[in-house]
């Protein structure tokens, strides 16, 4: 443990160091972000005009499916795990993660899972084409042969997430520095603790649902086949029992990041720390009892519709508490708008818009019109892009000087922000309108009256894509050099991570720090 990193590639292959593993997770997720982004651009290019121009419908369906899968499981989740690896030990004063060897495993199985998933694009019959939600029987009886590889890659991703979560929980519960009580932990640590429990609870359910698919396809069972006595609607229940908590898995750590950044740049302590903790816990709890809001149209009894409608709306309460606390933290603060803060403020505003469209969708009778239209696409991109992606970006800018010892280029950061901010809104805002007007999601061709808004959306998408290249360039330049960052980096930021030198040494807190 006492020595530094091994030279060469072996360093990365054998490493058990939380910082190395964190960096690998982050780079991996950025690669997946670009890959998934290219697929999104194929989609938007095809949708630039009505009619079929660039790709065939079969390939279009493969693109929407792979885009969703890669962004959810390859970009957003590993990025949060990467940040957890880097920051949690430094935030709680621990020398490393609790189970460092398992940590190495949970990362290194991921590239195999995604190589397998991506290889399906070159297989006979093509890649999975049944949507990221892979509803049976589309994903069983009517699936391309590559579905088996899809199933195994999901198994591996699930194993990786579960191992990562076990590690995070063990680290947080066992390795805090003396004096770091639970209610003194930074919110990023809290939100990750709760997220890790969510992951352990629902990733096995995802593994279960793909296992049932596997058995239906190859071993003659009929969990989801009506002809054999099963029920396709069962698939949707099991999937969304995983799927709704999953969307919170992609947003709770974001809440933690934003709760770290806003106080620093508002120069005020976070308003309502304990209410933030309780709100996070109640969101996590409620996320288990709202899944059927994705299934209002399958034919539920009225009591079910009402239950899931009210339960869903209830989630807006703790979410509102959080938004209130962030706004109150900023209120009368002496704010400055460095890049991390810009992304964090945009997060608060745009995530709230996504929350409101979520509330509209939660109204069961109204959802009969909105369901499976572009309005849903607009909703979840407003919560995921400015929610998950912006918060990750904000976190990277915020902690990058600590990781590398160098300041990033602030002007380039601001250019990145404004390009991304404008690109995102130009892409996704018009989708609300075409959705309300009835444009279905997941179609390669559409009626003429939707042409204008789709054209605007496609332009925005390419702008958003270009913005990410600025980001990549800026990060690479910062890793290579730049103005030296101080140990504190920002003005009086809170947290143990700012007490270690910049760049953070390979081993930090080998002796636990004193916590006030």
């Amino acid at each position, binding site marked *: 443990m006492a020595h530094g990193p091994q030279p060469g590639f072996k360093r990365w292959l054998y490493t058990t160091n939380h910082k190395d593993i964190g960096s690998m997770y982050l780079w991996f997720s950025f690669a997946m972000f670009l890959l998934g982004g290219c697929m999104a651009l194929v989609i938007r290019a095809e949708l630039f005009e009505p009619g079929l121009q660039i790709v065939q419908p079969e390939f279009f369906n493969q693109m929407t499916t792979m885009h969703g899968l890669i962004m959810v499981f390859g970009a957003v989740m590993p990025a949060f795990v990467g940040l957890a690896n880097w920051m949690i030990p430094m935030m709680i004063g621990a020398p490393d993660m609790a189970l460092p060897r398992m940590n190495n495993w949970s990362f290194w199985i991921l590239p195999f899972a995604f190589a397998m998933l991506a290889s399906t694009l070159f297989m006979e019959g093509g890649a999975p084409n049944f949507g990221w939600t892979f509803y049976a029987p589309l994903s069983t009886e009517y699936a391309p042969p590559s579905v088996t590889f899809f199933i195994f890659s999901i198994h591996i991703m699930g194993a990786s997430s579960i191992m990562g979560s076990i590690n995070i929980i*063990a680290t947080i519960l066992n390795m805090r520095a003396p004096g770091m009580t639970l209610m003194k932990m930074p919110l990023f640590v809290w939100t990750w603790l709760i997220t890790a429990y969510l992951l*352990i609870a629902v990733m096995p*359910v995802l593994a279960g649902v793909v296992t049932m698919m596997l058995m239906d396809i190859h071993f003659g069972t009929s969990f989801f086949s009506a002809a054999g006595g099963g029920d396709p609607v069962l698939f949707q229940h099991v999937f969304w029992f995983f799927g709704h908590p999953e969307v919170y898995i992609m947003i709770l750590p974001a809440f933690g990041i934003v709760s770290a950044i806003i106080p620093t740049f508002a120069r005020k302590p976070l308003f309502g720390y304990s209410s933030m903790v309780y709100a996070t816990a109640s969101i996590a709890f409620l996320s288990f009892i709202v899944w059927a809001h994705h299934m209002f149209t399958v034919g539920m009894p009225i009591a079910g519709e009402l239950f899931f409608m009210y339960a869903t709306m209830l989630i807006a309460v703790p979410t509102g508490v959080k938004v209130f606390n962030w706004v109150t933290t900023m209120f009368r603060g002496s704010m400055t708008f460095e890049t991390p803060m810009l992304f964090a403020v945009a997060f608060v505003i745009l995530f709230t818009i996504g929350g409101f469209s979520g509330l509209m969708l939660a109204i069961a009778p109204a959802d009969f019109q909105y369901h499976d239209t572009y309005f849903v696409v607009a909703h979840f991109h407003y919560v995921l892009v400015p929610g998950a992606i912006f918060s990750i970006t904000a976190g990277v800018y915020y902690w990058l000087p600590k990781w590398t010892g160098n300041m990033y280029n602030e002007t380039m950061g601001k250019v990145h922000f404004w390009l991304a901010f404008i690109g995102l809104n130009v892409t996704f805002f018009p989708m609300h309108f075409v959705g309300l007007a009835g444009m279905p999601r997941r179609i390669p061709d559409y009626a003429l009256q939707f042409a204008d808004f789709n054209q605007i959306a496609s332009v925005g998408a390419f702008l958003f894509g270009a913005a990410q290249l600025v980001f990549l360039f800026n990060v690479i330049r910062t890793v290579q050099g730049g103005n030296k960052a101080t140990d504190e980096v920002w003005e009086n930021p809170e947290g143990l991570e700012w007490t270690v030198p910049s760049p953070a040494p390979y081993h930090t807190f080998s002796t636990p720090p004193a916590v006030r």
Partner: protein
Amino acid sequence: MWWSDNAKIATKLLALAASMLVFAIFVMPPLYDAFCEITGLNGKTGGKYEAVPAAVDRDRLVTVQFVASNNENMPWGFKPSVVTVKVHPGEAMDTVFLASNPTDRDMVAQAIPSLVPFKAAEYFHKTECFCFNQQALKAGESAELPLRFIVDPDLPPSVNTITLSYTLFDITERVSSNLDNKNTDSEREG
């Protein structure tokens, strides 16, 4: 000191994950079926019903409509012999569905019932139904598929019309590939 604590917590969490996997595969599907059966959700009708002598409610007439449809790629002819019947609750009623296999190969089919309104599902009893068994028809053969049912006298007064629909699935391949490992599928309840 850390290691043993960590091993302990990792084991516990792993056990939690394993139990969630078991829950998803072995608990959720039966739970869902039970839930549907109790509530009549999804229009799932019950299994074979043993007729108990009950008073026939001569004052009330309930309309029962029959719908027959084929699942995708199912080439059989399939239709009810009569589209609507009126029955008194408590009275047993017989009808037949007509099926024919126009292809030149022997085939096996399974009919899956569904009933609306959902709340009538538990008051609709089938004492005999072709959906309780797989139906095999040789190439070019046709058959009359029998159905005998009783509408329960406790049927809520608000229900005047019941629609019973059957979807016919081609399970020829499924049956031939399952011949060796006799599968629970075949004894599914209609």
